[in-house]
Every structure is written in structure tokens, then in C-alpha cells.
């Protein structure tokens, strides 16, 4: 009798563990979705299947069920620093960049453009191409980088319908935010988007930048930091989008791990020694 009870209790516990709530960053009906980009040097690695991925969720090995490659449309969110540290010529280049990026989108994609100085504003609300852009430097002088990125990382999960990418162009300096770096990183852990950060200009020449701050946001979300000369910003942003399109969505049904709380992820490719693998560092679930 005692043995039966123990088995029953164990079964209940296991059932609880094996029926997790969907992850907060992406409420999937087919399990946990993870955006994964794989490179061999500068070359994107294609033709990988679910079995090629090795995923540990809070240290427990999971079984990937699918690995889709470039099948879903994207929601692109561009975040541009238009503060005083950005010159008029920068602004003109950014507008050109926005137009070039918007022109390269697929009809089923959606795009929105956010600008910030001391205040945060839409240069384009979320829409499908063609994108109408209204870029202007407005509001009081100052740079609210942390507030702007924090706000831009508030997302709604769309796991089976769309993939979300946010691209932030800034030198990451800040003198006007109410919130702090810790808050921004916390929201980065909650966001559904993969965040690429683009640092324009040459950081070694007379500019103070917080490269690590940009890097941290990208690392947490599975994106990466890209540094580029001013004249190549547009091509770098398009490169980030291409890279994101060429990444995988790997899914697995959570096993052997309590559902609620922070899930630290470790994603690798079997036999992929030397590959660079970009995936979010974890996700929150309830």
C-alpha cells in the first residue's frame, strides 16, 4: 500500500514536471521554440535537422522535435538613436538605411521603426511593405538609450506565426533614462525578439561607447553585436536581417525540468566543432 502511494506521488510530480506552461517569451503550441543561427566561419550552415541540435534546458538534455529553416515571415523592429550624439549626416544616412531596409522586406513581413533622443517615438508604426517613414529629431535633447531599448523589447509572443527581430543602432551612451541597465537586461530576458545591435563608426577613434552594453543585450537574446563604418550601416542592417532569416527555429517539448522560472539554455550542434552558434541564453516560463 505504501509502495503504491509512493508511486502515485511520484507520478503526480512527474506529470507536473512534464506538462509545463508555455514559455513566457514564446507561447508555442508545439513546444519551446528557440531561434538558432549557425556559422562555419562567415558561412551560414544550412541543411541541419532537428537531430543535429543538442539542447540543454537548465542543464537537462532535451529532444529537439523540429528545426525549421526560414519558413515564417518576420516582424522587424528597428531602433535608431537620433540623439545629439548623432550628427545630421548620420540622420540622413539613417533615413536612407531605413528606406533600404524597408525596401528589402518581403511582402508578408512587417516592420516598425522607433527613434529616440530624450524621448521615444515611432518613425513608422507596425505595417507591411511599403513602409511609410516619418523620421524627425523631436523632443528635448538628451539620450535615453536604456529607456528606449527597454520599451522596444516589450513584445507579444507570436511563435507559430512570425519570428521577431529587433535591430538597435546606437553608441549606447545614455544621459536621460529613468531606468537602468539591470532593468534593460531583465526585459531582454523576457523578450520574444532576437536583438541585433549595430554600433556605427569606428569605436577606437575618439568616441566613447559602451560596446559591452550592446553586446549583453544581443547575447541574452541570441543576436549579436555588429560594428560597422558609418557608410556601411545599411548593408550591415540588411546583413543582420538576412542572417536572421537564415537561422533555424528549433523546437522541443520540455522534459525533466520544472516549468516555472528562468530556463538557462545551452544550444550546440552535434559534431559542429568550430561552428559558432547563436541562441538566446534562456527564457522565462510560468
Amino acid at each position: 500500500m505504501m509502495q503504491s502511494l509512493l508511486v502515485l506521488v511520484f507520478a503526480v510530480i512527474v506529470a507536473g514536471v512534464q506538462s509545463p506552461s508555455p514559455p513566457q517569451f514564446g507561447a508555442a503550441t508545439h513546444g519551446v521554440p528557440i531561434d538558432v543561427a549557425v556559422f562555419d566561419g562567415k558561412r551560414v550552415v544550412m541543411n541541419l535537422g532537428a537531430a543535429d541540435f543538442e539542447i540543454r534546458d537548465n542543464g537537462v538534455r532535451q529532444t529537439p522535435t523540429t528545426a525549421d529553416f526560414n519558413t515564417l515571415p518576420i516582424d522587424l523592429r528597428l531602433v535608431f538613436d537620433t540623439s545629439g550624439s548623432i550628427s545630421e549626416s548620420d540622420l540622413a544616412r539613417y533615413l536612407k538605411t531605413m528606406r533600404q531596409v524597408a525596401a528589402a522586406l518581403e511582402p508578408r513581413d512587417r516592420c516598425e521603426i522607433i527613434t529616440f533622443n530624450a524621448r521615444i517615438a515611432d518613425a513608422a508604426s507596425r505595417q507591411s511593405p511599403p513602409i511609410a517613414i516619418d523620421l524627425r529629431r523631436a523632443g528635448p535633447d538628451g539620450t535615453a538609450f536604456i529607456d528606449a531599448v527597454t520599451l522596444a523589447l516589450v513584445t507579444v509572443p507570436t511563435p507559430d506565426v512570425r519570428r521577431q527581430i529587433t535591430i538597435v543602432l546606437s553608441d549606447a551612451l545614455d544621459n536621460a533614462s529613468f531606468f537602468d541597465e539591470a532593468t534593460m537586461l531583465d526585459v531582454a530576458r523576457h523578450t520574444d525578439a532576437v536583438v541585433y545591435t549595430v554600433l556605427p563608426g569606428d569605436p577606437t577613434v575618439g568616441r566613447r561607447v559602451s560596446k559591452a552594453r550592446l553586446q549583453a543585450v544581443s547575447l541574452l537574446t541570441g543576436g549579436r553585436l555588429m560594428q560597422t563604418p558609418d557608410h556601411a550601416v545599411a548593408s550591415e542592417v540588411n546583413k543582420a536581417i538576412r542572417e536572421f532569416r537564415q537561422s533555424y527555429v528549433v523546437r522541443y517539448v520540455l522534459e525533466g525540468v520544472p516549468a516555472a522560472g528562468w530556463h538557462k539554455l545551452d544550444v550546440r550542434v552535434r559534431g559542429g566543432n568550430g561552428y559558432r552558434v547563436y541562441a538566446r541564453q534562456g527564457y522565462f516560463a510560468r
Partner: protein
Amino acid sequence: MMIRPFGMALACLLFATATAGSAGSAHPAPAQGGSLDATLAAYLGGDTAIIARTFTRPRDFEVLRRDLDRWLKSWDRGKALVLLEVSRVAGSVAPQYAAIIVNVGRVYMETASGGDRAAPDFAAFVQIWHDAAAGVLQRASDPWKVEAYVTDVLGTSTSASSGRLTGRLLLARAVAQERRCWDQRPALEQASPEVEVLAKAADMVVPDDLDGLAKAGRAAKVRSHLTCLGEALTRLEAAARDDTRVEASVRAGWILFQMGRSQDALNRLEIVPPGDDRDLAFWLALFRGRALDALGRVADSVAAYRSALALVPTAQSAGIGLALELVRLDRRAEADQRARALRSAGAAGPDPWSFYMNGDDRLVDDWLKQLRAALR
């Protein structure tokens, strides 16, 4: 606005003098000749905008400075008030002159003789003038100049200065320290230790020196920042008078939060919000939202941010705070809707957070009105 030489501007004032009897509506047209007396006459005639129309370039203030010694001989409330108005305009046009003009005014207040200095309301006039001057400097100058100004005023021991130990001047000195701490906060232009840990975990090479600080220097900067905040807290406690007690508490609460003492911050912020000071009530609610969040009281934090937004619906600071709390509550669609509304509103409307560090600058317009009324 058309830019013109100061001489031309003065010429404009001569016309203003001639038309002072009917001034207040039409702007004067340029004329020949002119003087600071003409500026004063036009101003006293009701054309308060003449200051902004006259001083449009840094050079205008330089010329003014040369002429002031001759002009400021005997005591005249109107002259004192014009100096204050000019310093306010300098804050927008040529900030480097704001402190110079304010200090000329301070000396004039102390040393000029004659006039109505024996009038019963003279002490009140002086007090409001100094409060307003400190407010001007809080927006236009660095904290050191604010502090130097307050120290000079409080250190003056003439009969006219008795009773000047006002809460507002003491508060201005505390806010100068608060702003120094804010400008020097360690995370402003360099990555926090958390960022470094993240970056290194991903094999990123993090330079030891991101912004000119070696690691040892960075630790020292963190300690120095805490010391700075502690000094600000002490000054705020010393500044608590009848007319400043609530604001001193609100600011002390924010300082305590920055020191990592969230519960102490919340305790300090458990005060009745002022009914007639919307900005102060907003800051109180905003900082409560932040402290409550740090204590994990998400629902209470939501309520605090909603209170702030009820006071100033366009405030992005409180709006972002509310969106974040909604994310924490997993009310993602609502959070997203809130974020979109904030961005859509853009730069429209005020956010009292944006001028929190400018201290009493927000009160200067009201004080100027009181001083103008005291001329009549």
C-alpha cells in the same frame, strides 16, 4: 527669430520707451539710440517679452556685462528683476552667461543703496529673487555653480540677508549634490559588472578599460558614488523645512533607492502627496513604483505607476514602468499596447522626470510673476 547686433537691439528699446504707455501688445520697431534704461522702461511697461527679443546671441550678453557697472548704481527693484529675466534668457541662448549675470545681480542685491530697501516687503522680495536665481542656475549651469551661489548667499551676513536660510536654497544645494551623483553614476558610460559577466560567459573579450577606467578605478568609482549619494541624503535631511519637507522626502527616497535601500526608500516615500504640486506628486508616485518593483511588489508597483500616469498621462518614464510591470505579470498584450501608445504619442506632452534634476527651475516662472507683482 532674426539675429541682430546688440546696438540695434538697444535701438529697438528706445522705441519701446517711447511707446511704453501703450506697451504690452505690439512689439516695438527698431529706432535709433537706446540704453538699458529703455529696456527697463519697456519691461515695466508690461512688455516682458522684450528681454527675449533683445538678447538673442552670446555677444549680446557680453556687451551687457560691460554696461552693467554703469547701470547698476542705486537700488531699483526693476533693475534687479530685469537682471533675473536676462539670466533666464541666457540659460537658453548662452548658458555660460547665466551664472555671471545672476552673480552680478546677487552683488547688486547686497550692495546697492537707496531706493525702497526699507520697505516692509523688501526681505520677501530678496528671498524670492535668490530662490529664483538658484532655480535659473539649476537649469543653466553645472551643480558647482549652483552650490557656489547658494553658499555665497547664505554666507552673506548683511541685514538684508537675514532670514535667507530658506528651505529652497538649502534644497537647491542638496539637489546640486544629487545631480553631481547622477552625472557620475557608474553605469552611465560604462558597462556594469553584470554585463561583463554576461559578455565573458560568451567568450567575448571585455576590455579592462571601456571608458578610461581600469578595474580598480571602477570599484573606486562605485564607492565614490555611494559616498556622493550619502552626502546628498544628508543635505536633503538638512533642507527639510516647512515649505520643502515633502520634496526633500521624495528626493531622499529616490537617493535611498539608488543606494540599493529599496525598503528604506519606500518608507521615506510613505507620505501624503502634495495636492498643489503636480510634478512633486508625480515624482513621488514614480519613485514608489520603482521601489515597489525592486521589492517584488508588482501589483503595488502597477498601482503606483498608474497614479503617476493619472497625473501626467504623457510621461514616458511612468509609462515604461507600467509596461514593464505588465510584462512581469505576463500581461504581454496589454504591455505591448501600452508601449505602442507611448511611442505613438512620441515627444508630445511633458514628462516631469525630464526636469527632475533641474530642481527649482520649474518654479521660476511663478516666482518671476510674484516679483513682477511686487513692483506694482
